[in-house]
């Protein structure tokens, strides 16, 4: 049964200089098999130079809701953005 095979999430670095990006998931018996399956499933056309696989059960995640109070701390801090500050137009290079 594949039910015995844990679910893995797959992250691929498209090329040097880019972050790993989540591309999907797969089932595999162990880490080695997960890496091999991820290569065959998600990088058949040179889509990546590096793959991370991690058991889905090992990921800690915030609630997906956009109204989640979890993100409230950054909601009212407009002064963290450069556009918050008025600088006269005659000041160069800023």
């Amino acid at each position: 049964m594949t039910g015995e095979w844990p679910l893995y999430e797959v992250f691929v670095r498209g090329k040097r200089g880019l972050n790993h990006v989540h591309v999907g998931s797969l089932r595999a018996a162990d880490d080695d098999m997960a890496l091999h399956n991820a290569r065959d499933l998600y990088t058949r056309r040179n889509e990546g130079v590096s793959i991370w696989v991690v058991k889905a059960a090992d990921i800690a995640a915030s609630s997906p809701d956009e109204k989640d109070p979890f993100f409230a701390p950054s909601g009212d801090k407009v002064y963290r953005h450069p556009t918050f500050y008025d600088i006269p137009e005659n000041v160069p290079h800023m």
Partner: protein
Amino acid sequence: MTVTEPAPSEAELERHFEHTIAKDQRIEPRDWVPEAYRKTMIRQIAQHAHSEIIGMQPEGNWITRAPSLRRKAILLAKVQDEAGHGLYLYSAAETLGGDRDDMTEKLISGRQKYSSIFNYPTLSFADVGVIGWLVDGAAICNQVPLCRSSYGPYARAMIRICKEESFHQRQGYELLMTMMSGTEQQREMVQDAVNRYWWPSLMMFGPPDDDSPNTAQSMAWKIKRHTNDELRQRFVDMTVPQAEALGVTLPDPDLAWNAERGHYDFGAIDWDELKQVISGGGPCNTERMERRRKAHEDGAWVREAAAAHARKQQQRKEVAA
């Protein structure tokens, strides 16, 4: 700072869901969704996955008999892509709580369907070309709008799939062009394959709109973006000039440009045939299901051995630690 809010009511959750869809935003895993949306989406994705998996069989039939190493390598790559499509989709269904073993079980017990087109036989190598051109072509028509499906993981799988389908369609058309520039017998093989696959390809878009009761709800949820008849028309309009360029005749005497509509008119589809094939009475239904069941059963020891190996490795690691 801790914000304590009472848990949102079902009505509020529902409003939030509707709002997300209305804003054309994507629903993501673990979002609250109405039970009917979850069920419909799991079934839609699973049946799509089943189609990709069963879809390996008609063409797989020709891998060992491909006429050249070039064609064999191409066909192998194409069939491997279809396996990949199935796997992207099964994992997308899992994000909604679909169970992989349960989905496989539903396929091999016949409780979930797959696309009717794969119940037709592949009688000559020209069928490989015609499947790439017409069947993958129809699949592209169906799938491009699904790249904007409201369910995020499904939409993303579709984007990946559509990129690969383009190779499928082009290799098929190129194969046919090669055959059409060959002998008279090769041209006849192509025409014969077109004659057999044209109508079943039109049926791939499903029953006509007035006999498609779930369309309205699916459109409202944005898990379907166009009606069956709209997509079918789009496919016909795209395909007619391709057939002309290829030099084959589409087997429909009623096929004609309608300047007023700005579309091609086409003849009546035999809906009884579609019903019969969907309900198990197509030429290859039994064979396809049997093959899938056997592959699943024959693979059981491999799955068990891999799981046993993983357990042993884990134990060894724990002892060493």
